[in-house]
């Protein structure tokens, strides 16, 4: 086995072009498990933790660009990241300086609350300190915790190769169980997300709060700016999927009753039907973590809850106040 450690994106893309079978590794939370248990013996391991272009995040033309090497702990605001040269962290090697969040890490949590909620449910502190959003996408597990929130937010995935760069809409990214639209010579570079114009929510079912692969998960985003509702279902279909009929139904119901403007209470019938449509959009199976029937049932419950929570947030904060706050925070960074 060969171990390649590129120090720049150009080097990394050249390496991937020369060895399309090379397995990219960042936080190692998926790849190392396969290596430790001899489930995988790649000829080339491509370490991406020293590619500075993959680290950190920025605001560009009003959109957030989150580098593929951003860790779950950076998304939640718990920690700084693993990518880059390791400077500026842990001066004494004992963690006292390691609270050192990357620039504006807390800001990322405030700007992308749905993704932060999802990242917070990943594994344990140790796992969140290593695992990355790019790795989550690269593994493309139907149970990947970021995916429902990325679907709900309408994110895009930037991938690159020696041939060039392209952007894949998130709802065209997942092509099968642990399969994605990333070509063999491509690397996931970043995720692009518009700062939300309304509240976001995420909920996940598991046997405990930590160290749990989702039995079912659901992400929801209200987009009052566009009068749309975004959804994402996790762990209940061969890939993470949107509940398109549920999105269309609830957006129409909100429009027809003038609720985006009035902010009045959501009719119970709308919430119930939304839950039923989300459940119907799933294609779950029975497995060791739960039955298909339980997943269908729990998805309806998660959908109803997250919609009620998000609507309650929307009623409380108001579109103008929230959008203003987001813009202010963006300027602070």
């Amino acid at each position, binding site marked *: *086995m*060969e*171990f390649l*450690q590129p120090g720049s994106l150009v080097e990394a893309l050249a390496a991937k072009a020369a060895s399309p079978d090379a397995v990219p*590794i960042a*936080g*190692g*939370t998926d*790849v*190392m*498990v396969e*290596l*430790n*248990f001899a489930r995988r*013996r*790649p000829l080339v*391991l491509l*370490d991406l*933790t020293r590619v500075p272009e993959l680290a950190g995040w920025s605001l560009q033309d009003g959109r957030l660009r989150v580098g593929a090497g951003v860790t779950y702990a950076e998304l939640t605001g718990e*920690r*700084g990241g*693993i990518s880059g040269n*390791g400077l500026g*962290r*842990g*001066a*004494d*090697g*004992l*963690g*006292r*300086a*390691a*609270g*050192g969040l990357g620039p504006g890490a807390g800001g990322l949590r405030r700007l992308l609350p749905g993704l932060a909620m999802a990242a917070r449910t990943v*594994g*344990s*502190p*140790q*796992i969140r*300190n*290593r695992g990355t959003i790019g790795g989550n996408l690269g593994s493309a597990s139907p149970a990947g915790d970021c995916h429902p929130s990325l679907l709900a937010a309408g994110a895009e995935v930037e991938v690159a190769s020696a041939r060039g760069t392209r952007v894949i809409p998130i709802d065209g990214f997942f092509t099968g169980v642990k399969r994605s639209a990333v070509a063999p010579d491509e690397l996931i570079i970043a995720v692009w997300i518009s700062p939300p114009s309304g509240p976001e929510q995420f909920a996940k079912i598991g046997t405990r*709060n*930590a*160290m749990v692969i989702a039995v079912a998960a659901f992400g929801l985003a209200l987009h009052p700016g566009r009068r749309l509702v975004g959804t994402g279902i996790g762990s209940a279909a061969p890939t993470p999927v949107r509940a398109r009929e549920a999105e269309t139904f609830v957006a129409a119901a909100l429009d027809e009753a003038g609720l985006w403007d009035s902010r009045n209470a959501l009719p119970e019938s709308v919430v119930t039907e939304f839950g039923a449509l989300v459940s119907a959009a799933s294609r779950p199976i029975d497995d060791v973590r739960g039955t298909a029937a339980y997943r269908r049932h729990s998805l309806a419950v998660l959908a109803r809850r997250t919609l009620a929570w998000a609507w309650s947030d929307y009623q409380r904060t108001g579109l103008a106040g929230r959008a203003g706050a987001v813009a202010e925070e963006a300027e602070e960074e």
Partner: protein
Amino acid sequence: MRVTATVNGVRHQADDVWPGESLLFVLRERMGLPGSKNACEQGECGSCTIYLDGIPVCACLVAAGQAQGRDIVTVEGLAGSDGSLHPVQQAFIEAGAVQCGFCTPGLLVAAHDLLARDPDPADADVREALAGNLCRCTGYEKILDAVRLAAARLRGSGVAVPAAPSPAAPSPTEASLAAPSPAEAGEA
């Protein structure tokens, strides 16, 4: 493949490293530092928790080459250079938080990190910080006691200095964990 890293303040080098092996394997089998324990090898149990550039991670999930040139602190690095235990270690002994001991190294690093960031954590914060460290012996209550005790002592001392606390009267636990006297060793 050669891997060079600073471990517990000392520069270590390992040769003939297989690129697919974990940092945990390098530490235990090539650098003579068996404190970090190898249990699940999939990041579930936390027994191999170490600091990598100041951030607690599972050493079993770090590829050997990823540690090249990095700064690592293992459980062996928590005690003072004179061998005096860190207050977190002392508290684990006194509170009875150590039974079989296999999870202890990882819990010590995780607890050490928590108290470095938050000198006065609420119980819920302690549970969250230690959520990635499994213990099958203690039922966790004694571990929570130990973290509370260490936090109180560290706050009392002002800063999180890696020095041993003033020795209190040895508790039964402490006595039973102490090295046997030469006489006892001779009898055994």
